[in-house]
């Protein structure tokens, strides 16, 4: 059957190659050919033919230990097997000596024998013996041989020279307690060390993890630990089921037999043995009379685990004939017997124990004889299934599993070709009963069902009734340690109570209710202080792992968590801040959904790639939030505020002519711009086109309307249009709010006294008016479009309201909250420089300070700091700090300068002349500047025209009106707005300016310009 499979596979590969080029006709032939292959199998020749051994009866007699046969020892199999293979023999009197302790010299001898170095030891023993004086020569051969092992052990470093000296001391009784007594029991750690040495196992120096997981690892000799680790890794010795290795305990002989059996895979090749696995497909008996005597030949056809046919021929005298007898004893002849030593379920015997369908392990020698056969199970009685546990129900003794594959041998590494997948594409899921007395083996140790958890990969032994009778954890393609790694998404992490729960592997387990417990996976923290925790590949605290994280968890052998590596799962979402509360944000996502999210001090707030604080978030800001969204909660991790100043740049009013659908443009006639509480005609006459933003809203009569309606019904109606600055400086309309024809527009410059969002109205403190607002009201705060909720009492506002013709109510068209000006004080001084500390500061010998409209003189020196922000203005413009020197031709010592200072930090130093006159006025024209085609300033303006100007007469302490005023700007004119130095090009028409100049006339140079809006 299996042969047929491989044939088919080959043919299929061929058909695929051929199919591309030729036609499917080929495929048809292949199918037919495959069909023909089947009968070929009947004539299959065995790949190998083995025979039994002639001394099978003698071997069976040797291992017929009375203290084993009648006992119930778990080591039976090991004792029989090692005995049959001649690896570890009994005392020779049908006694094995199960509980006798292995002495040190025996243990060393065993270690060398396992490595096939018996002859070497004998030679060494003879050499020692030859050096001895005749009278000292050992009488006892066994002791003499032991000398050889000891010598070899000392040479190889298994024992020290001192140990050897002790061991060779003829008077062993005189040795002290710490000495190496050769007949003293060997310790487990010694046995491990010696076996590891002679079997040449690679010591594990770096990571002694397995051994470290035993509680008593500290009891071991540190020098031996790397070797014990190697022994553990190879599964040659194991700890007990309580988590102890017991390194200093003695070893019984039956334990030693088991150790040897565990080392079988290493030892057998050293003895020239080969281990094979197979299933008995057929047993045929034929008779041979060729030698004149009736001989029965039993042929066992075995399908080995590589899929090949092996045959074992057994010969025995046919009992129906006359075997002949020994003429002296009368015993029947045993001639020509070639039998097998077979172990089946605790009993040893000959080939008669074998049945068709038996899965067997057969150990063969180089001479093609079979030295030992062990029946593992019968195919018809026992199934082995490799599976992943989905779920365990201890109450009903059932287990849900995903079946990976089934196979013939209970050892994954040897299953070979016997692995049968259910289906290549789909894994089979099923439920099995398990026996109450199920044998559980976890990492080679006997264990219980409490150590079996969902997610484990296991090898199940299923009996004929379909009940799981044994379970062993396995690693499918991963190292032993890695097999104890589970991964998933955290449902709950509770370090206080010491557990972490993951959602089930398939992501179910969010539905509240009873079945939840079956779906979720919970693991305990054994010791929270010794837990290794990583998050985002960095060492973290266990508290930092939160629900929703992807985690990998490493478990120890008792399924406790020893290490966690987590990765946060945050989703980036774009949203608009509808309202900011002290500890929560109301966000509106792009899909229109809104959410209130708590914000605590751990949330990172970022703007322009720089960490900032929560205060810098304003209502109406666009943000990108990183959120952790789980079925139980939504937690915000980071808020990035949109940069690029995409704010409301202007509000226009005008008649909407139409909306151009093709270009998404709004055409506005007679556009006016809202500036400082007034509508001002724009520089652009007639029709202005404004692009619509990607997202815009149109309102009329407090309702949102569709774009199409405008061209149909709203042509030439007046609307307020809020625009924001887009890429490339282009303005884009975001809100178009139509006015009702006939309503009267009033503008208030006022302060909010009563904001009542519930009623949809605000009260103004000076005008005592109640202004209602609605969807169509354009509300601007901090340059952002906001909802009415963002208006607070005491906000200074401009309100553009419309008095409704029918109701008489005032409805807000625009509410613009004025930006609070920087109230930090800067002072303006004038003084003569007496000393300069280059790039650091300077001192004036005395100074005047501008106080109100007059200069107040102080006859004291004052020192100012220069920092990187300090601007020094000379007659030609900016002067480098490095040229502001107290020496040389251009020394500034003795110069009289203006100093604008914040405390003692100089912001601006200017060499402009002394001005004693103060004037105020409204800017209406800015001249002399040039602007490039993209709006960049090429030349700064040099002339300002003011109206409503007045000049303060310092002698009269009174204002004199001069109506219009024209002033020149110099290279060293200081222009201040909100306590900051600005450029002349930053001045705006309509700005209220204060000017410090030299004359009381309506013309002349301005030395200091202060914007006083």
């Amino acid at each position, binding site marked *: 059957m299996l042969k047929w499979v491989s044939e088919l596979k080959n043919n299929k590969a061929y058909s695929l190659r051929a*199919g591309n080029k030729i036609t499917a006709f080929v495929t048809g032939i292949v199918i037919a050919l495959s069909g023909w292959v089947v009968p070929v199998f009947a004539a299959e020749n065995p790949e190998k033919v083995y025979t039994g051994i002639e001394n099978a009866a003698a071997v069976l007699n040797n291992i017929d230990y009375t203290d084993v046969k009648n006992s119930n020892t778990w080591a039976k199999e090991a004792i029989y097997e090692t005995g049959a293979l001649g690896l570890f023999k009994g005392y020779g009197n049908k006694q094995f000596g199960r509980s006798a302790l292995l002495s040190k010299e025996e243990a060393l001898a065993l270690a060398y024998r396992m490595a096939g170095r018996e002859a070497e030891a004998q030679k060494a023993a003879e050499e020692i013996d030859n050096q001895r004086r005749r009278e000292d020569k050992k009488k006892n051969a066994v002791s003499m041989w032991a000398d050889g092992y000891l010598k070899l052990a000392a040479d190889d470093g298994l024992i020290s020279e001192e140990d050897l000296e002790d061991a060779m001391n003829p008077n062993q009784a005189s040795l002290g307690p710490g000495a190496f007594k050769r007949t003293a029991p060997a310790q487990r750690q010694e046995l491990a060390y010696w076996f590891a040495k002679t079997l040449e196992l690679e010591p594990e120096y770096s990571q002694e993890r397995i051994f470290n997981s035993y509680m008593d690892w500290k009891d071991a000799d540190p020098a031996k630990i790397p070797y014990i680790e190697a022994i553990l890794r190879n599964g040659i010795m194991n700890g007990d089921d309580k988590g102890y290795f017991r390194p200093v305990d003695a070893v019984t002989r039956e334990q030693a037999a088991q150790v040897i059996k565990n080392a079988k895979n290493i030892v057998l090749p050293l003895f020239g043995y080969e281990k094979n696995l197979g299933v008995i497909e057929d047993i045929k008996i034929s008779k041979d009379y060729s030698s004149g005597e009736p001989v029965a030949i039993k042929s066992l056809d075995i399908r080995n685990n590589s899929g090949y046919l092996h045959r074992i021929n057994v010969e025995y005298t046919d009992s129906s004939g006359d075997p002949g007898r020994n003429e002296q004893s009368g015993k029947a002849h045993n001639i020509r017997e070639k039998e097998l030593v077979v172990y089946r379920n605790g009993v040893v015997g000959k080939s008669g124990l074998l049945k068709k369908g038996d899965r067997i392990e057969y150990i063969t020698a180089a001479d093609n004889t079979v030295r030992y056969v062990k029946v593992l199970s019968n195919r018809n009685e026992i199934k082995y299934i490799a599976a992943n546990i989905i779920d365990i129900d201890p109450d009903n003794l059932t287990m849900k599993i995903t079946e990976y594959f089934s196979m013939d041998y209970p050892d994954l590494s040897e299953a070979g070709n016997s692995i049968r997948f259910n289906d290549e594409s*789909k894994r089979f899921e099923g439920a099995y009963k398990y026996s109450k007395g199920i044998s559980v083996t976890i990492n080679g140790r006997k264990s219980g069902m409490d150590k079996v958890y969902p997610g484990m990969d296991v090898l199940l032994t299923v009996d004929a009734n379909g009940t799981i009778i044994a379970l062993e954890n396995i690693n499918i393609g991963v190292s032993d340690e890695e097999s104890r790694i589970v991964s*998933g998404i955290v449902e709950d992490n509770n370090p206080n109570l010491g557990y972490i729960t993951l959602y089930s592997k398939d992501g179910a387990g969010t*539905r509240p209710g009873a079945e939840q417990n079956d779906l979720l996976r919970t693991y305990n923290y054994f010791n929270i202080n010794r837990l290794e925790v990583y998050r985002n590949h960095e060492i973290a605290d266990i508290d930092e792992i939160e629900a929703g994280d992807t985690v990998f968890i490493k478990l120890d052998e008792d399924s406790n968590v020893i290490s966690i590596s987590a990765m946060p799962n945050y989703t*980036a979402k774009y949203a608009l801040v509808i309202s900011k509360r002290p500890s929560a944000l109301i966000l509106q996502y*792009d899909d229109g959904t809104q959410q209130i999210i708590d914000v605590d001090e751990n949330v990172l707030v970022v703007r322009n790639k720089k960490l900032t604080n929560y205060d810098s978030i304003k209502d109406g800001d666009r943000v990108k939030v990183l959120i952790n*969204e789980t079925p139980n909660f939504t937690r915000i991790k980071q808020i990035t505020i949109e940069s690029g100043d995409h704010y409301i740049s202007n509000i226009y009013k005008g008649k909407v002519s139409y909306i151009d659908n093709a270009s998404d443009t709004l055409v506005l006639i007679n556009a006016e711009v809202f500036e400082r509480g007034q509508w001002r005609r724009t520089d652009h006459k007639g029709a202005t086109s404004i692009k619509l933003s990607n997202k815009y809203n149109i309102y009329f009569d407090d309702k949102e309307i569709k774009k199409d309606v405008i061209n149909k019904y709203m042509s030439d109606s007046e609307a307020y249009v809020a625009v924001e600055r887009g*890429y490339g400086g282009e303005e884009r309309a975001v809100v178009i709010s139509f006015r009702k024809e006939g309503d009267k527009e009033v503008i208030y410059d006022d302060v909010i006294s009563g904001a009542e969002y519930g009623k949809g109205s605000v009260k103004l403190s000076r005008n005592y008016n109640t202004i209602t607002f609605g969807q169509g009201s354009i509300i601007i705060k901090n340059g952002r479009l906001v909802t009415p909720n963002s208006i607070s009492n005491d906000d200074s506002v401009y309100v553009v309201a419309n008095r409704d013709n029918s109701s008489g109510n005032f409805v807000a068209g625009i509410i613009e909250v004025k930006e609070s000006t920087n109230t930090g004080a800067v002072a303006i001084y004038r003084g003569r420089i007496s000393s300069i500390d280059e790039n650091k500061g300077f001192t004036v010998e005395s100074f005047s300070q501008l106080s109100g409209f007059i200069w107040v003189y102080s006859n004291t020196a004052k020192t100012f700091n220069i920092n990187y922000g300090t601007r020094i203005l000379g007659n030609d413009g*900016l002067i480098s700090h490095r040229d502001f020197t107290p020496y040389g031709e251009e020394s500034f010592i003795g110069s009289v300068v203006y100093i604008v200072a914040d405390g003692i930090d100089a912001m601006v130093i200017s060499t402009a002349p002394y001005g004693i006159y103060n004037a105020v006025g409204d800017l209406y024209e800015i001249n002399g500047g040039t602007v490039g*085609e993209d709006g960049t300033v090429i030349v700064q303006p040099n002339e300002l025209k003011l109206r409503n100007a007045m000049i303060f007469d310092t002698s009269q302490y009174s204002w004199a009106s001069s109506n219009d005023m024209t002033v020149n700007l110099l290279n060293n004119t200081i222009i201040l707005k909100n306590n900051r130095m600005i450029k002349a090009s930053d001045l705006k028409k309509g700005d209220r300016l204060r000017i410090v100049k030299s004359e009381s006339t309506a013309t002349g140079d301005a030395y200091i310009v202060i914007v006083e809006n």
Partner: protein
Amino acid sequence: MKRMKKNTVCFIVAFCLLFIPTVTYAGYGDSGYESGVSSGTVPGKDTFEYQEVCFISGEPIVFKGTVKIKKSMRRDEIITTYTYNLKNVDRSATLTRSLSFTTEISEGENGQAAEKTVLSKQPTETIKIDNTTYRLTNYDFTSSRIVVPRPAVEYYAGNLWWKKTYQIGTSSNGGTVTVEATGEIYGYNQYWGNTEATILNCIIQSEEMKNGKLDKWGGTAKISRSATISQQFKYYENIPDQIGFSGGYEQTQYNNNILEYSCTMPEFDSKGVSTDIMKTVSGSMKLESSPDKVRLPVADLRHLRGHWAENDIKLLYGLGIFSGDGSDFNPQQYMTRADFVSAIVKAAREVPEDPNLVKRTTSGTVRKKGSEEQVTSPFTDVSTKSLYFEDINNAFKRGLINGEGGKFRPNDSISVAEAITIFIRTVGLENLYPGPGAVTTFRDNDDIPGYAREAVYIAQKIGLIQGDERGYLKPNEKITKGRAAALISRFITYMGEGIKKDYREGILNY
């Protein structure tokens, strides 16, 4: 054990079915590797509007003009030549530059392509600002990117580094300016649009003799740019009543190219010498080519007047995603898997090839009309003679569908979970899945079948699906044709507009 499929042999005539409008194509490198942005290329043209910001004089100067791009392909190499001709009228400044790059493409077994771009010819560049000439004396350049194809979207990411040295003035000791830039490039390409975002960080260092003294200064600049092609669908109601068809859709293709810069440079004193005062200047520029509009055909859907999904259905008929005249469309009918796949292969078309690539070797991509090809069906229950065969075969080949056990079940109704799985395969965003066992926030999360969990999680994350008002997804419900129309229409909107945001606003503004 897997049994052999019974294969059928048949002949079909292959011909092109899809109507493809002219596509403006923003391919990789269409804005070059400098600090500028182009209007995007148009097939058949090789010269495009272009703007660039230049920092070498110590302040940002925006140059405007054109770039001429020539691409040619030879085996695994693409040679791209850029010729820039730019000026700034305000400053009477000019910039001319000629660069030639070789891009070597090595395709991996997984279909991913690694590209490496190097300079292939001696570059030339001359900039004149305020009567000062800057001449490029050295240009070191390296760039690479990885292109990962998914069934309907091709994603890529790349890195870029260059260093330019200019000589100031004509004499060799007049001074030098060096500009060193490192950049990251991200983008995607698909039928409904594409976006490329670049972030470039530069350091500018100058050494120049001024007034007999060596003036040394340094400044930094950050440039973010994005080139996008996106689709929008606008519905036009007819103005006349007496017209033989209802209102219909217009498909508009936008080509949007923006660049934002922010630089921190020293201020210069009145003598033109640098000072210690650093000034940050930022700005942005935008280049758009005029939108390309196509009026879509109108289906006969009078029996659906007022139906919830009327407009979605109209759009899908208009785009040819639903075929026929629409008069027999029943929105209440469950959609079969075959019908759905037939629609999705038209909604999630293959990534178009760069039309500007002049191929030296004509490959066998052009099929002669009437050529014969033997075709076998990937599924035992889909006959090659089936009406849906071509679409199903196409979907299978592109990895949109797998079927189960060699069967596709074409006549079964498609479920929500199945549809979402196909959508996510299409966009190939499986990478967003945080790991086995991730849960969605739908209240009926546990009802999502195992095979669809990954897809549903991702679809929710990218905003492709939403639960109902009560937070339920009802993953196992069958989809009516009406609902399918809404889902596919949402998918197209996502492909045309939604995916863009993460590349443009996400990279430029945050």
